[in-house]
């Protein structure tokens, strides 16, 4: 079941979200529970193939808890109510913990490694190893917690250290952003690939880069579009120069 949970989002769609992936992951357990009763088995699979959503790394928690409830013969109405109750929080917690926390922190750490002169493969491998220790660890932990606690999993989750991790990660992330900005202003993200920056580059580029970093920090993801437009404009200008 845990292995199957790695592909829980494969049949992602706008109707049932990851509902079918959830049923797919739960199938071996349901098959074992309802062995010899194909009708109830098909009915259980159909119940779990309905709308469901969760962060993929925390989905094993819902899988473990529901597997336990099904094994204990819990009323399907209670199981459904449980799934409805956890799907929002597992999504929100996971998004904040992983997508907006653990992942950018690991990426920024590896980018900083690259920009201070580490070899590219060291930065890439360190990212994959560090990130996936957290990733696989979270999947294992959430599955075990779900299986152990069943429908009381929400209560146990509140007592876990997730909230502490969520408080620490943004501080580490902000520190790494602070570290990455001067390195990026100096063009270290280019010199990682042997593109020489510095000697031949007029100083006004550094001033513009500092202003750009401040604007980036002020406006966040909203600067992405204008920066892409700036690069696009300069590329078109370059192509125009070539044509003329």
């Amino acid at each position, binding site marked *: 079941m845990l292995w199957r949970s*790695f*592909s829980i989002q*494969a*049949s*992602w*769609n706008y*109707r049932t979200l990851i509902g*079918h*992936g959830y*049923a*797919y992951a739960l199938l071996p357990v349901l*098959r074992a529970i309802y062995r010899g009763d194909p009708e109830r088995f098909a*009915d259980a*699979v159909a119940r779990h*193939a309905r709308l469901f*959503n969760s962060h993929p790394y925390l989905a094993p928690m819902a899988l473990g808890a529901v597997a336990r409830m099904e094994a204990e013969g819990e009323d399907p109405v209670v199981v459904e109510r449980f799934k409805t109750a956890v799907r929002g929080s597992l999504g929100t917690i996971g998004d904040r913990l992983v997508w*907006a*926390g653990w992942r*950018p922190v690991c*990426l920024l750490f590896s*980018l900083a490694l690259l920009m201070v002169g580490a070899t590219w*493969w060291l930065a890439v491998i360190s*990212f*994959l190893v560090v990130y996936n220790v957290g990733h696989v660890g979270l999947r294992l932990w959430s599955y075990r917690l779900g299986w152990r606690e069943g429908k009381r999993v929400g209560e146990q989750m509140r007592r876990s250290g997730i909230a502490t991790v969520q408080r620490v990660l*943004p*501080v580490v*992330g*902000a520190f790494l*952003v*602070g*570290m990455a*900005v*001067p390195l*990026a*202003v*100096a*063009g*270290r*993200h280019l010199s*990682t*690939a042997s*593109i020489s920056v510095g000697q*031949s*580059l007029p100083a006004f580029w550094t001033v513009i*880069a500092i202003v*750009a*970093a*401040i604007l*980036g*920090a*002020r*406006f966040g993801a909203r*600067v992405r579009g204008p920066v*892409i437009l700036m*690069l696009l404009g*300069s*590329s078109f200008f*370059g*192509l125009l120069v*070539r044509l003329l």
Partner: protein
Amino acid sequence: MSWLAIALWGGAVGLDATAFAQVMVSRPLVAAPVMGLLLGRPLEGVAVGVLLELFALVILPIGAARYPEAGTAAVAATAGYIAASGGEQRPDMLLLAVVFALLWERVCGASVNALRRFNERLVASVDGRDPLEPRRLERVHLTAVALDFGRGALVTVVGAALVTAVLAAASAGPGIGDDVAVGMLCVAGAAMAGAALSLFDGWSGRRFAVVLGAICGLILLIVG
């Protein structure tokens, strides 16, 4: 250029983004250098990957949000840049490859949405049967995995072919010059590095940590 390697790696990267594993080989920081390595020139992949990663950092795949797919676009741009740069680091070509990837990632993202729409029909073919057939549900789910692999391979190969053609056409004759290209890429990198702060509650919430980090960064710059 090995189109088979591009297709296979593009497929794997497309799959990793959502459908299977999510071990983050689909991040530009990983996908582009590995593509470079497969084509014998990892540093070109690093150049593309680092820049695209800075742009991808601020994108959050939350809920049913529609977002650009950076990994497959990074693989395509790396393949094109390697073909165009001819063994040297060419900042002007790098700029074009990065711009292409930033546009192409939207096409890749649209292909993800198209596949999700198609998945609706696949899933409906299971739900529509009474009683539901568990084996059919398994088959449909695995078909969706295979389709996503194919989608990733397709958008990567088409992107690589397009960017190779664009860079080949652009490399004939003088352009904006290497200095301007390097300057533009420095500015873009700095802006996106700063933008990543929004992920961690912004300046007002994390002033102390940012300043401490900046001091460390400056020391590393001076020492290094």
